[in-house]
C-alpha cells in the first residue's frame, strides 16, 4: 500500500472511445518508471488521472496514498506535473515563470534553488528571455525546473522529450537520472522506444491496455524468438518480397534495415538467403541480432 503511485483496474472512456481499459500497476519509491507507447495509446489520459485532472470511470488510483478523486487537494500539493504540451507562459521571461510557479506553491526560487540548480543553471544565462523565444531543449529544461521548484515527491513528465533534438534528449535523461538519485519518484511517458532502456522499469502500453511491465532487461529477456537483421541492395522491394516468403512471421523496417522473425522453430537463414537471391536481391546480409525494446513491442502487438 505504501507505493508512491498505485493504480487498480482503472478504465476511462471519452464518449465511445475507450482510452484506458483495466490498467493496474504500482511504482516503487525512487523509481524511474517509463510508460512507453505510440501516440494515442492512452499515456496522457493515464497521467491526467494520476495528477487529478481526470476522474477514472472505473477503478482507483493513489498517489502517495491519496485517492486521486477524493483527496485531489493533497495530491496537488505534492506532485510535480509537466504536461505533454509546453505549458508555461510564453510571454513571461524564464525568471518570471520560475518566480510565478514558486509563488503559487507558496515558496520562492531562492528557498528551493538547490533542487533545480543542476537544471536551472543551464538556462539561467537566458533568464530575461521570454519563454516563447527559447529553443525546444531549453523550454523543456525550464518546464522541468518549474515542475520541480516546490520540491515534489512524485514527478509526472508527459512526453518530455517529444519534439526535442537528440542531444537535448540525451541531456534530459541524464538530468532525470540525477533527480532519481535525490529520491524523487519519476513517471515519464515517451513514444520513443530507445528511451525505454534508460528507465528502471517500463510499462508498454497500446490502445489503452498495458501489454507488459518489467525492467527493460526483463522485457528483452522475455523475447524468445530469433531476430534477424536483413539488408540487401534493393531495400525498396525487400519488404514485399519478405512478406510473400512462406516462413515470415514479422518483417518491419528498422532504421536502414529490416528486422525479420521466422515461423520456423529453428530458422534457416540460408534458405532465406537463397529465397531473396531468387527474387533478384544482391549483397544480401542476414545477421542474427539481440532484440531491443521496440522489437519486443512489435512482438507483443
Amino acid at each position, binding site marked *: 500500500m505504501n507505493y508512491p503511485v498505485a493504480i487498480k483496474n482503472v478504465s476511462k472512456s471519452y464518449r465511445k472511445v475507450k482510452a484506458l481499459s483495466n490498467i493496474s500497476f504500482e511504482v516503487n519509491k525512487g523509481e524511474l518508471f517509463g510508460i512507453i507507447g505510440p501516440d494515442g495509446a492512452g499515456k496522457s489520459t493515464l497521467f*491526467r488521472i494520476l*495528477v*487529478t*485532472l*481526470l*476522474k477514472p470511470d472505473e477503478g482507483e488510483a493513489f498517489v502517495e496514498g491519496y485517492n486521486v478523486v477524493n483527496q*485531489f*487537494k493533497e495530491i*496537488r*500539493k505534492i*506532485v510535480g*506535473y509537466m*504536461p505533454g*504540451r*509546453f*505549458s*508555461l*507562459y*510564453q*510571454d*513571461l521571461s524564464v525568471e*518570471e515563470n520560475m*518566480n*510565478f*510557479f*514558486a*509563488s*503559487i*506553491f*507558496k515558496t520562492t526560487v531562492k528557498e528551493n534553488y538547490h533542487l533545480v540548480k543542476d537544471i536551472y543553471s543551464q538556462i539561467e544565462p537566458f533568464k530575461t528571455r521570454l519563454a516563447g523565444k527559447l529553443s525546444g531543449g531549453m523550454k523543456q529544461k525550464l518546464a522541468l525546473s*518549474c515542475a520541480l521548484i516546490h520540491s515534489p515527491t512524485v514527478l509526472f513528465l508527459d512526453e518530455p522529450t517529444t519534439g526535442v533534438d537528440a542531444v537535448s534528449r540525451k541531456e534530459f535523461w541524464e538530468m532525470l537520472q540525477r533527480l532519481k538519485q535525490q529520491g524523487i519518484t519519476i513517471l515519464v511517458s515517451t513514444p520513443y522506444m530507445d528511451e525505454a532502456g534508460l528507465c528502471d522499469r517500463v510499462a508498454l502500453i497500446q490502445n489503452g491496455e498495458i501489454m507488459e511491465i518489467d525492467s527493460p532487461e526483463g522485457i528483452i529477456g522475455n523475447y524468445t524468438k530469433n531476430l534477424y537483421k536483413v539488408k540487401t541492395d534493393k531495400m525498396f522491394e525487400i519488404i514485399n518480397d519478405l512478406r510473400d516468403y512462406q516462413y515470415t512471421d514479422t518483417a518491419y523496417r528498422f532504421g536502414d534495415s529490416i528486422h525479420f522473425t521466422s515461423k520456423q522453430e529453428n530458422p534457416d537463414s540460408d534458405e532465406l538467403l537463397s529465397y531473396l537471391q531468387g527474387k533478384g536481391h544482391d549483397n544480401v546480409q542476414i545477421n542474427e541480432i539481440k532484440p531491443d525494446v521496440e522489437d519486443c513491442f512489435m512482438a507483443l502487438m
Partner: protein
Amino acid sequence: MRGFVIKEFFHIFRDYRSMLILFGMPVVQVLLFGFAITNEINDAEIAVLDYSKDNITQEITNKITSSGYFILNKNLEHEGQVAEEFRKGNIKEVIVFEDNFAKKLEKNHSAQIQILSDASDPNTANLLTSYTSGIIRNYQQQKFSEFSLPVEIKPESIMLYNPELKSVFMFVPGTITIILMLVSAMMTSISIAKEKEMGTMEVLLVSPLKPWQIIVGKVMPYVLLSFVNAITILLMGFFVFGMPVQGSVILLLLESLLFIVMALSLGIYISTVSSSQQIAMLLSMFALMLPTILLSGFIFPIENMPEILQWISHLMPSKWFIIIVKDIMLKGVGILYVWKETLIIILMTVFFIFLSVKKFKIRLE
C-alpha cells in the same frame, strides 16, 4: 496570490492588442460619440413665432439667441409657416410664444412656450429642446426670484416627425457602460480562456491554488484598470465636453465599481463555458456587446421597442447602470433615488459569481 496578480499585469502590459483595447478604445469611443453628438449644437438655426411680441418674449428670445447655441434665422408670422420652414430644412427648431404672454404671466403666474423641433435627427432635436428649456428655466429663475408667488413659464416641447422620442443625451453614461462591460467581461473571459487554450490551466489546476484564488487573481488587475478607465472617461467628459457630474462623484465611482465587479463575474462565467479565446470573444461580442449597445437604451430608446424587447432589456445589467449613471450625473440624485437599480445589479453580481464558482471546473472535464 500576489504573484498571480503580478503575472497577470505582465500578460496585459506585454500584449499590445489588449493594451489598445484597454486604453485606446475608451478615448476613441468617448471622442467619437462625443463629437458626433456635440458638434451640431453650436449655431443651430431657429425661427421664432411670437404671438405676443411683448417685452418678456423679446427678452427670452434675446437670451436664447445670445447663448451661442442658437442663431435666429427668421421671425414667423403665422402657424402655417412652421411646416414650410421645417421642410426647407434650414431651421432645426421653432419657438412659439402664446399670445398675451407677459399679461398671462402676471395674472395667472403661468404662460406657455412651445418648442417645436425637427426630430428626424433625434439626438440633435433632443439636445436643442433641452438646451432651450434650460435657458428658459434659467431666465425664469433670474427674473422672478424676487417674486413671492411662484411664477411658471411652461416650456412645452414637441418633437416633430418622431413624436415618441425620449431623452438620449447620454453618451457619457453609455460610453462608460460599454467600456466597462467590454474591458471587464471580454478581457477577463478571454484571459481565462487563453489559459485553457495554452494548456497553462492544466498546470494551474495541479497546484494548491483554489478556484477562487485563480478567479480573484485573474480579475484583480482588470478591476483596477477598468476603474482607471471609468475615471478617464469621466474626466474626458468633463474637460473635453464640459459634462459635469451633478451628483456625488464618490457615489458614482462606487456604483461604477459595483458594475465592474458585475461585468467581471459575467466575464468569468463566459470563460467557464468557452474552451478557446475565439469562443470567449464571440460570446462576449454577441452575448454582451450587442445587447449592451442595442437594448440598454444607449442608442435606441427602450420605450420605443416592442414589448418583448422591453422585457428583455430588463435583463440587461447595462440598462440599470445607465439609469444610475444618468441620474447621478445629470440629475444629481443620491443613493435614495437609485437604490432599486443598485440592488438589481448587486443581485445580478451575486447570481453570476455563484454561477461561475459553481461552473468553474476543478478538473479538465
